[in-house]
């Protein structure tokens, strides 16, 4: 199934909740409203014709200039072999989105990582703690305005 | 001469082990003191020329029972280790009772007319075997019944009852 068809199905199903979509280029994706993410994802996974069963990646991007944080979920369907990305755009000051770890278990760690490095809050996540950085680290390193702490446990952070 | 020294060495080990168990509060250490005692007893058996018994003592007691006891100790939780030291009045009472008992026993032994004080040459395993199959054939077979009962009973009593955690085969 081509991306166009998939987007059509989604448009048909969700209408205005689909904020935007890109079907051409190197990264075809749809943008959905943050509140609707879970239902869109559930639909994508369960629909007979779509069956996006594998969540490949969850990546957060910090657009400091636009004051936004973008989270993109890359999906692929092992059954049918087609791929699509779903994006949500969040407010940078309060980046909150519902978790999809109930839909794909793979999201569990990906979301923890996005929380750890970009600072996206995933509401409803069972275990939203830092995964890569130490628990007592300050700040989210992949934010564009991140400042290194001076010291960590008595060791200088900057060279 | 050498025997005398050895005898006293082993006797010392036994008594010290016993006393150490009495005053110890750590149950693992108690178990190891018990092992010391058992080894000393095995030594005395050797001294008496009862090699087979000595060896069986080590195999069964030290290799078996003691391991069992150590296991038992480790399997029980720490809280049991409390209440191991007797209270003061108990100590007094204990010393009195056991002292009197010991005195009585020793007096009896010393007075007793012990006929045989002749030393025999050490007995061989074959002799033990013959007596097992001869005079003692009844107990020998009975022992197997006993062991059977123990095997089943103990296994039943101490069967693991960890539910639903096994690996599905």
């Amino acid at each position: 199934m081509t991306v166009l068809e998939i987007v059509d199905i989604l448009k048909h199903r969700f209408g205005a909740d689909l904020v935007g979509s890109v079907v051409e280029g190197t990264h075809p994706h749809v943008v959905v409203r943050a509140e609707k993410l879970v239902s869109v994802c559930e639909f994508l996974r369960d629909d007979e014709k779509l069956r996006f069963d594998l969540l490949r990646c969850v990546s957060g991007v910090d657009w400091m200039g636009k004051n936004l944080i973008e989270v993109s979920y890359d999906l692929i369907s092992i059954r049918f072999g087609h791929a699509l990305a779903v994006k949500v755009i969040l407010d940078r000051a309060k980046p909150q989105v519902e978790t999809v770890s109930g839909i794909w278990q793979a999201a569990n760690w990906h979301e923890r990582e996005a929380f750890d490095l970009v600072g996206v809050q995933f509401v409803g996540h069972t275990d939203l703690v830092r995964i890569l950085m130490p628990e007592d680290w300050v700040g989210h390193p992949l934010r564009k305005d991140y400042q290194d702490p001076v010291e960590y446990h008595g060791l200088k952070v900057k060279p | 001469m050498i025997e005398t020294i050895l005898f006293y060495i082993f006797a010392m080990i036994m008594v010290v082990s016993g006393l150490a168990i009495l005053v110890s509060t750590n149950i693992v250490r108690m178990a190891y003191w018990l092992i010391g005692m058992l080894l000393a007893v095995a030594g005395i058996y050797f001294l008496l020329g009862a090699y087979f018994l000595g060896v069986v003592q080590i195999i069964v007691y030290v290799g078996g029972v003691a391991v069992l006891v150590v296991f038992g100790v480790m399997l029980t939780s720490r809280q049991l280790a409390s209440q191991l030291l007797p209270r003061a009045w108990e100590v007094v009472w204990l010393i009195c009772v056991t002292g009197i008992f010991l005195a009585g026993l020793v007096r009896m032994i010393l007075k007793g007319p012990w006929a045989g004080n002749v030393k025999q040459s050490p007995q061989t395993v074959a002799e033990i075997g013959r007596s097992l199959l001869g005079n003692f054939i009844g107990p020998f077979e009975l022992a197997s019944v006993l062991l059977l009962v123990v095997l089943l009973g103990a296994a039943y009593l101490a069967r693991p009852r960890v539910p639903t955690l096994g690996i599905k085969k």
Partner: protein
Amino acid sequence: MALIEGIFEPGLAVTSVDWVLNWARKRSIFPMTFGIACCAIEMMAAGASRFDLDRFGAGAFRATPRQSDLMIVAGTVTFKMADRIRRLWEQMAEPRYVMAMGACSISGGPYHLHGYHVVKGVDLVIPVDVYVPGCPPRPEALIEGLIRLQEKIGTHTIAKTRDNFGLKKKL
């Protein structure tokens, strides 16, 4: 500090004792099984058939710090790991040696500039005896580092190295 250390004046007997003790220390360096990152693969390769650290008596990798003499810090030390490395090093029995293998453990290496989570050199955490640069160092380089360590061990002496006023003596 050993009991007999720093008591005797240097002399023939002392140097012979030194020689024997150092001979043993040198010939039997048990490294700790402690690979952190890419360098660990080269460390394994050095221990494997082609290069065979065991030829130097240093092939018996022990997993527990208690029995190992040498900690080869083979890889990137992060802040999360630093405390653990410190603890492991402290739990090693003396005499213990540390070898910093690879650019990362020497100075943070490739992650020196922008690595917000990388300790800029393991010598900030624990004292290092030998640095082996490279990214990763070849197994031969690791062997060379080991030989350098042996040389260093060979200079250890139990003789008095301070005079009666507690000043360091020139030997």
